[in-house]
């Protein structure tokens, strides 16, 4: 039974959808266009949707006021290492918990799962002290090690385990009959099949690392070691007021590349993040 929606209702629905788009699209639009306005135009009344005078100087200032290129590289390389590391750690642990039976497995799994119950904000004080004791504050080590091995990777491990449980056992059975060892079965048979789950893990891990804010401001103190979220808030004038066009230019450079990748690969993003049900 297929019914056409009446035209009046259809118009109403489309109207509603378009209105709802505004608060989702306008901020990004406003961020990019305002970053291209000269400072005098930024609070102009009435607000203009496009700059009257296109001014790219804010983008140059971003690099003059902060070591923004290094900060960009910092965020990027940390996120890439964390993503790769988490994928490896989670795939290995997830496979072992799903597919191998070994003594003590259930207890160890519960130990690992505790990480899901403990938000990383709870352990930030002792973790800071631990890294401080090791002389690793103001380095990137805490931002790399804790996400790969600590609480944030537990969710990834859980997702990988759920995936490996759903794999049909016959595939592995055949491989083992052919003489492949346990590790070979994992690496050559199960892992290639796990690409969708690994993709989901990669996307949310990358976003998580890219967005990290509390940890960098706790651990890092030298501007050249800052990550992007931390750097974005540093563009202030001599009185501590934000330099809006510069700040928005830096924000645009941070947000737009990820947004472009999202638009190109939106199905993977949406399905991946929805299946894991995680905030980015």
């Amino acid at each position, binding site marked *: *039974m297929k019914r056409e929606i009446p035209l009046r209702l259809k118009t109403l629905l489309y109207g509603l*959808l378009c209105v709802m788009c505004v608060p989702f699209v306008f901020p990004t639009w*406003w*961020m990019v266009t305002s970053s291209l306005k000269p400072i005098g135009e930024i609070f102009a009344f009435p607000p203009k949707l496009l700059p009257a005078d296109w001014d790219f100087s804010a983008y140059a200032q971003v690099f003059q006021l902060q070591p923004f290129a290094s900060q960009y590289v910092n965020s990027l390389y940390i996120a890439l290492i964390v993503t790769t590391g988490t994928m490896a750690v989670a795939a290995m642990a997830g496979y072992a918990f799903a597919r191998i039976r070994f003594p003590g497995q259930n207890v160890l799994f519960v130990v690992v799962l505790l990480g899901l119950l403990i938000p990383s904000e709870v352990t930030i004080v002792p973790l800071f002290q631990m890294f401080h004791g090791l002389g690793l504050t103001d380095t990137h080590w805490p931002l790399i090690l804790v996400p790969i091995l600590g609480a944030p990777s537990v969710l990834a491990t859980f997702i990988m385990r759920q995936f490996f449980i759903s794999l049909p056992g016959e595939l592995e059975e055949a491989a083992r009959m052919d003489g492949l060892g346990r590790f070979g079965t*994992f690496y050559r048979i199960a892992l290639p099949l796990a690409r969708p789950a690994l993709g989901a893990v990669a996307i949310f891990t990358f976003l998580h690392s*890219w967005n990290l804010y509390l940890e960098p401001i*706790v651990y890092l103190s030298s501007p050249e070691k800052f990550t992007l979220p931390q750097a974005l808030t540093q563009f202030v004038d001599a009185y501590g007021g934000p330099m809006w066009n510069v700040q928005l230019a830096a924000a645009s450079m941070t947000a737009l590349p990820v947004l472009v990748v999202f638009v190109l690969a939106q199905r993977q993003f949406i399905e991946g993040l929805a299946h894991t049900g995680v905030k980015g």
Partner: protein
Amino acid sequence: MTTTHPKLQVPDRAGARPGTGTPPFWTVRRRDNLVGYLLITPQLVGSVLFVLLPLGLVVWYSLHEWNVLAGTFEFVGGENYDRLVTDANLREVLGATALFSVGLVVLNLALALFLAILLNQRLRGTAFFRTVFFSPVVVSLVAWTIVWQFLLQDDGGLNGLLAAAGVEGPNWLRGEGTAMLSVVVVQVLKNVGLNMVLFLAALQGVPAQLYEAAELDGAGVRTRFLRITVPLISPTILLTSIITVVGSLQVFAQIAVLTQGGPGVSTTVLVYYLYQQAFQFHHFGYGATLSVLLFAIVALLTLVQWRMRRRWVFNET
């Protein structure tokens, strides 16, 4: 949580060899065990070092008076916990935390469900709108917050638009009530896309025949929504509410950028208060005590919600 293991019928070649006396030590089972332990080692070591050890330490620290600037670290027993009760600010902080979490969950779930229902209609172009509503999820959190900070300035974009329409807008981030409202709305818009997608998937799983049958029985739109849609998507409502509640207790960057907890302490949520005590005022002992409190709240809420699902979630799979 129980683990299920598909049985692998692998012949134990070493053990099954006929005619040999003592089987070799490295049987297939033993080799499997070894591989298992090796594969979980990084995650297990990480959990012990970066989750369990800090959790133990945070409890230990909470029993001490520890001021890094003054260089003091002495055992004071439950004194920090007494302070939890007497700290007048904390009462307001917990109030703000509750207000923020409740506001966020209600607004987020309502908007997510509303958008999902809109997208679930037989319309062309819903994929485009889905992308639009989802897009803030991938926008860098601090970038998103900074734009809103800019928009919500007294002379900012939002009040500019309101003024153009003849309305005088308030100073959003400086007003007692509007600051909290702003922080909640900014956070809802950032993440509502995730819950929306989860709801959309759940709605698409509701069999169309149910609606048709109900319609034949004369059930109106409202009855169909309350009697069919809501019960059938209740597992998703529970899941999204758990994720959103726990996520709401972790919100930090938005507060730090938009309001710094102000005006007064009206938007100082627990995580932000914890950060201030530990890393701005250098009261590590009290900061640790607040961490224990945060942990207790998160654990309690998670437990309550998992209990609740038995009571009101229909058709648990």
